[in-house]
């Protein structure tokens, strides 16, 4: 039985052999003998070395030997927090994968010195697992163009491969979001378009609630700027300042990366992609993004600002693909979005951008979130078609299915 990527809340029926949580000694040896001049030292108080970590984990450190300017907590290579005053403690969500994590704490002293301590977590050894992943469906229901917001769990019927499923979790738009906001900042965005996109992104951030977390990825044919997943809208909004457009557009590569990063997050997983152009610089073909999207639980929204016909023609003739191949890529990417249960917002004018971002955050708040454990799990890579019905009239939108592997 193999483990799986995409750590959604899972049902583990397991015989667990706790192997890693013994010998909880910190790495790095014993405390040195006192020295005449105070030597800064950092100790990790929590978690313990080799302790298996899941979900929200409290990190705590102790620093001695001088005045501290800041303490940085770095988990698996990513800076998750930086404190400038004690206590040197914070909480971080490490996800629900049964994997080793690497915690690094760096203390910077006011006199310029820096010390650090590294700790590795442990993992559970599992001798048998029946892994049935909770499938979460984000469902929007519309009647006569208006969202229907007063439905109850009993109003929904979920079909997986045509077989009715038992809905075990039910929520509305208050379920926290984990969102990746992908913003195309390529040269073609120069001027008012980029400013409108950045303003639209701020509108999206303004719509976040306290438990939502967002990661910003400003990209073109390269990474221009990124943030960690963060809940602080001020921190996120600061990343939208002073952005200069540059380069071409590589949607597939960064959309794939966004979906992959969301696998390890909790809550409703969402990608909001904004781009004005056609992808002619990606390394990954759209079929790779489709492969990922069919295994991801994330819903994708694509805000697409159309270029003029003349510009489109020039863009489509790339050295990498001919016109028809680029057109096929575009269509396939559109299918990826639809299959995920999201939608494409086609805009002709940058002036519509703020409204489009606002519509998406509002729509996310109006989602119903239905969870079920599929009754027919085969892990054979087969496609499971999903259908959701509601009592009474109404247009229901959710993901079209998923790959069972």
């Amino acid at each position, binding site marked *: 039985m193999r483990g799986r990527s*995409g750590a959604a809340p899972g049902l583990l029926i397991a015989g667990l052999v706790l192997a890693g949580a013994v010998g909880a000694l910190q790495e790095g040896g014993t405390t040195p003998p006192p020295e005449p001049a105070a030597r800064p030292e950092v100790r990790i108080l929590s978690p313990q070395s080799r302790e298996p970590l899941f979900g929200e984990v409290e990190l705590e450190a102790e620093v001695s030997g001088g005045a501290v300017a800041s303490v940085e907590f770095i988990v698996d290579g990513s800076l998750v927090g930086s404190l400038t005053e004690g206590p040197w403690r914070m909480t971080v969500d490490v996800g629900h994968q049964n*994997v080793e994590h690497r915690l690094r704490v760096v203390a910077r002293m006011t006199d310029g010195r820096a010390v650090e301590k590294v700790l590795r977590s442990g993992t559970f050894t599992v001798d048998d697992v029946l892994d049935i992943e909770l499938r979460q469906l984000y469902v929007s229901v519309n009647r006569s163009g208006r969202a229907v917001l007063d439905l109850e769990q009993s109003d929904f019927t979920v079909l997986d491969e045509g077989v009715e499923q038992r809905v075990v979790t039910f929520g509305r738009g208050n379920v926290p979001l984990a969102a990746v906001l992908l913003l195309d900042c390529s040269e073609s965005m120069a001027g008012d378009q980029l400013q409108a996109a950045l303003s639209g992104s701020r509108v999206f951030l303004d719509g976040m609630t306290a438990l939502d977390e967002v990661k910003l990825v400003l990209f073109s044919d*390269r990474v221009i700027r990124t943030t960690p997943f963060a809940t602080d809208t001020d921190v996120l909004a600061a990343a939208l300042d002073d952005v200069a457009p540059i380069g071409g557009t590589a949607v597939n590569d960064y959309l794939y*990366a966004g979906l992959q990063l969301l696998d390890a997050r909790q809550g409703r997983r969402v990608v909001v992609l904004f781009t004005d152009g056609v992808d002619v610089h990606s390394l990954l073909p759209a079929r790779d993004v489709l492969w990922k999207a069919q295994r991801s639980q994330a819903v994708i929204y694509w805000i697409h600002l159309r270029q003029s016909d003349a510009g489109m023609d020039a863009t489509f003739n790339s050295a990498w*693909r001919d016109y028809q191949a680029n057109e096929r890529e575009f269509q396939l990417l559109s299918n990826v979005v639809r299959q995920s249960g999201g939608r494409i917002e086609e805009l002709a004018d940058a002036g519509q951008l703020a409204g489009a971002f606002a519509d998406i955050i509002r729509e996310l708040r109006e989602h119903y979130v239905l969870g079920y454990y599929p009754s027919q799990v085969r892990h054979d890579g087969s496609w499971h078609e999903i259908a959701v019905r509601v009592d009474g009239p109404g247009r229901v939108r959710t993901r079209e299915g998923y790959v069972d592997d």
Partner: protein
Amino acid sequence: MPGVQPFIYSIRGGAVALALVALCGARPAEARDRKQIEAGIRATYPSVLASWAAGDDEAAIESLVALERDLVAPDYETGQIEALWRAKLGVVRDLMAAVGDDVLVPVMLLHHDAYVEYRRLGEPILAQHSRVMAEELATVYAGRKEESAARGVAASLLTSLGGHLQQGWSWKHSALLFSRATEIYARSDAAHLGLGALYERRADLDLAVQHFQRAVEINPGNVEARLRLGVCLKRKGDAAGARRELAQLVASDGQAWIDVIATEELAALTAEQGADPEAMLREALERHPKSSRFAIQLARWLDSRGRGPEAQGLLEDALLRREPEPESPRYRYNRWPSTELDGVRTALREEEAGRRPLLTSAVQDLRDQGAP
């Protein structure tokens, strides 16, 4: 006179500019007539050439632009452009009579650079006039010289102009110039590279491959031609051919962007064929730690093998890098070849520099005969 036919050709080239003028529909208020233009050229063009010969390139271009604008702007009448042609060709004929055909080399390069300057200034008619003049002088020079080196110089000039046109998306004219360059000098690998890139962009992969192969045969060190050959072979489904070409470029000591794309394409090919590209990608990440693309490509591979958490760690690290990422090689590839053209232009300038004393001597000869 052996050069007469090409000169007529030149005037035909000037007619293209004239047609453009006609399309603009400009009417002169007080247009300078043919005699005034001829007198203006006779009076000032030799001093422009003297500045160029003396190595004061900036001043030469500046005074040529000032002179030509003064003579034909703002009306750019058909007759004015033709008069400009005839007057300048008359002077060039005198220079050739004085010191021989090699004097054409600095003169053609002067007009090559004037073309670039007119483009920068947004002067389409005088830009075209300068380009066609440089082209035709190069064609005349090649027609009158038998030696391979001389023909190579002419071909280099045409290739350089073809490259400028390519960058400006004038595909047809660019293709014509590259073709003329290969006709004049069959061993111009840069011209074959330029032609191949045009066919590649049009997805005419058979012709693209032919030209890239020819470029590589002529110059095995032309790494961009080899890279594009490998990419086109992969697009054609010739996996073995693509692998052969791309593998030669991976981790070579040449240009970093060539290594990046060669590795990306080779790794993709390896994965498509069911083999494991992980080691290749990890080595590439060591060589190019700033590239988020290798991290994405490796993450995609790990993910497909059920190693999602590893893929996430890799991406978190790659996407949170503090340093700005440089231009992606794939973006560079999607523009037109430029590195090889830079090489061509450098070589051309070296050839031309050796002939500037001839121009000095020829201008002095004109002055001795009464020119200003």
